[in-house]
């Protein structure tokens, strides 16, 4: 642990020197300038290209956002007022899709995937990290399972389970579980070397060793791996919804319809950009929550 602490301190000092060159106030200014500059550049490009069906102006995107959250639908466009409309917006409105409902459905799927997949992955990772024998038997099988992209399974699962919620959720659970195994496995194994020998020589064994030494020490690695699982869960959920679901963000992005006919209807980039920005915001928010939770739970580590 000494080496790790050393490394952390040096990194911190590097950070601090960077902060000294660029004080926080100036950093946030630069941040805003960067954001504004790219938005301005984008607006300029949109003006020059003048093809709202390919590069919509920010005004169109804001309009699409208002329509999708359910405002501005009832408002009849006043005379001369610019109103954004497209096939995709119309299809979505006809199906009664709103941005917040789609986002809620996707978030629920992601959360379900995490709730079921993480314990599953933890269990397998713990077993493989804890027992040499289990590792020898399970690891080759795990490598095979890990190599299969979860979404490639979706049509096969559908044959077994039919068009149901289960066949959208299984790939998400699968993806989350597989990504949760690796950090747990390494977390448990890396601990095992030093602390386990020390604890054993003090007489700890079995359950005591597991709950008081291995699990707390593997905690930070496991929690760090959760952030990765979260990103994978979002990606799989959106992919599954793009392929086959009547709701959720993936469905919003491809504009409804059944999967074989999807992307055949004219897509509206304004809707897609609204969807992408919402997904990025949701992903960022959940990741920030997870980071706070991790910091709270592992306060004792760097203490």
């Amino acid at each position, binding site marked *: 642990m000494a080496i790790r602490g050393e490394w952390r301190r*040096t990194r911190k000092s590097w950070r601090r020197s960077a902060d000294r060159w660029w004080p926080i106030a100036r950093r946030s200014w630069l941040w805003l300038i960067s954001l504004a500059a790219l938005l301005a550049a984008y607006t300029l490009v949109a003006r020059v290209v003048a093809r709202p069906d390919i590069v919509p102006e920010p005004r169109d995107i804001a309009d699409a956002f208002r329509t999708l959250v359910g405002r501005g639908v009832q408002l009849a466009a006043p005379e001369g007022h610019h109103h954004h409309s497209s096939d995709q917006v119309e299809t979505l409105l006809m199906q009664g899709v709103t941005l917040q409902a789609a986002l809620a459905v996707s978030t629920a799927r992601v959360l379900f995937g995490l709730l079921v997949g993480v314990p599953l992955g933890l269990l397998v990772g713990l077993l493989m990290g804890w027992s040499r024998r289990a590792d020898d038997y399970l690891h080759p099988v795990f490598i095979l399972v890990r190599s299969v992209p979860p979404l490639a399974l979706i049509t096969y699962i559908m044959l077994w389970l039919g068009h149901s919620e289960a066949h959208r959720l299984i790939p998400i659970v699968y993806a989350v579980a597989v990504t949760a195994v690796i950090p747990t496995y390494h977390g448990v194994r890396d601990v095992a070397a030093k602390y386990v020998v020390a604890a054993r020589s003090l007489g700890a064994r079995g359950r005591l060793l597991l709950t008081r030494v291995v699990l707390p020490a593997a905690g930070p690695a496991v929690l760090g791996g959760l952030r990765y699982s979260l990103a994978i869960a979002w990606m799989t959920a959106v992919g599954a919804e793009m392929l086959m679901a009547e709701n959720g963000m993936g469905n919003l992005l491809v504009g409804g319809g059944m999967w074989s006919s999807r992307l055949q209807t004219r897509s509206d980039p304004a809707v897609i950009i609204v969807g992408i920005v919402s997904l990025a915001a949701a992903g960022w928010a959940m990741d920030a929550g997870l980071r706070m939770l991790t910091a709270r739970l592992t306060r004792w580590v760097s203490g």
Partner: protein
Amino acid sequence: MTSPRVRRAVVALAALAVLYALAAELGHGRLPDRIWLGAHYVENVQLLPTFRSLAEEGTFLVESRILLDSIAVSTRRVFLGLLLGSAAGILLGLLTGWAARLEVLADPWVTFFRFTPALALLPLYVVWFGYGETSKVLLIATNVAVITLLGAHQGVRGVPAVYLDAAASLGASRWLRFRRVVLPMAFPTILASVRIAAGLAWVTIVVAELIDARMPSLGYLLALAGAYPRVPTMLIGIATVGALVLLFDLLALLLYAQATRWMERVA
């Protein structure tokens, strides 16, 4: 005498194969072969095809060159995307890691792309770059670039300040410090991120090809097999993708081992 590790691995994989064969033989004739697909029934579905029918289907797919063509097309996309994406990502990551100003400028955009599920960009890319190669290669490249950017950035930032100070006090210029201290030390982190990116690139491409299924490609093969549905083709397609992911991972590991040979090994 083989080591217990190898023996156990063989036992586990053999057990898996035997269990599957058993399930397939038992299921033959017992599992439902008429399946409701949401809109209509399909007949003659083998939910668990026996090894015999898998072998027959496999020889057909190989002899008709369908499988090889699909592999070639998908691999080419992944490879191009990986090359393009990691070149851009590593360059940007090194820059943002080395220059604090650039980091702040790039930060909002890196954050944005980092939390965007890669597949969500596909419809946008289709609108901008059309169906076909460009949108798919760029989709992978974007995904890869984000991961390698973070890897390169962390690699540069992981270099202890002491080393840089030592080099500076010996009179090394900024460029020399970057080339002789930062680059070699960041290298393993960068390669590790490329390995992760390669795995995700395959996930991305297969699904991108499933969503926008056309031309010979592995995703198209899977989509086609799902539409009929033809389970042996489906399973062979899934196994092929898995094998390719495994192969790329092995290649990345080899590259990693080869490139970091100069480093001291702890164990």
